[in-house]
């Protein structure tokens, strides 16, 4: 019950980040909103872990964290080197 409510709140947070992803005036806004959406996804998976006590999902959390960091670093280097907005 509480887990469903919390996952719903995280879903709402991800959707708000998605609105900024579509609207964002610059490329950097889109990158940071993708980051926020991925952290919302991580939070939802973490709630699933807390709800079921199933540790299998924690590996997915590690992968998402590393992929989000790599993507943000690569995209910000791309923005810096090309000057594209």
């Amino acid at each position, binding site marked *: 019950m509480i887990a469903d409510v919390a996952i719903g709140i995280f879903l709402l947070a991800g959707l708000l980040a998605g609105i900024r992803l579509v609207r964002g005036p610059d490329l950097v806004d889109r990158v940071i909103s993708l980051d926020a959406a991925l952290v919302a996804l991580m939070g939802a998976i973490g709630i699933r872990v807390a709800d079921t006590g199933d540790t299998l999902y924690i590996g997915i959390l590690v992968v998402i*964290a*590393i992929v989000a960091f790599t993507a943000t670093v690569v995209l910000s280097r791309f923005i810096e080197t090309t000057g594209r907005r």
Partner: protein
Amino acid sequence: MNPVSAVLVLLGAVVALLASIGLLTFRTPYARFHAAGKASPIAFLFVALGAALEVGWVGAAELAIVATALLLTLPASTHLLFRATHRTTSSSHMSRDDLEVAEAELAERERADGGGTEG
């Protein structure tokens, strides 16, 4: 779920929602980065703490690894985005620009050393 982890999980969800509202409503890119880049790791930290109370020692250790990775990497990537924004947009609305002064000093020092590595 025990009451403590339920409260922690709900707290994390509310913090994430506040971060997204800030990301959506703030006016300048810098303010948006502050909202998303600082509140997001805190939100996940609350959720990981709540989950760690549920899954036993091994699961708690794995969650600690995830939380540490996020706390180390998310500020770094947000900093890179700040720098990319600063270099690609005009910063004429700022009253002072410390990064430009620091980079000029660094270039001066490297020229005095006879050229350093590019960074």
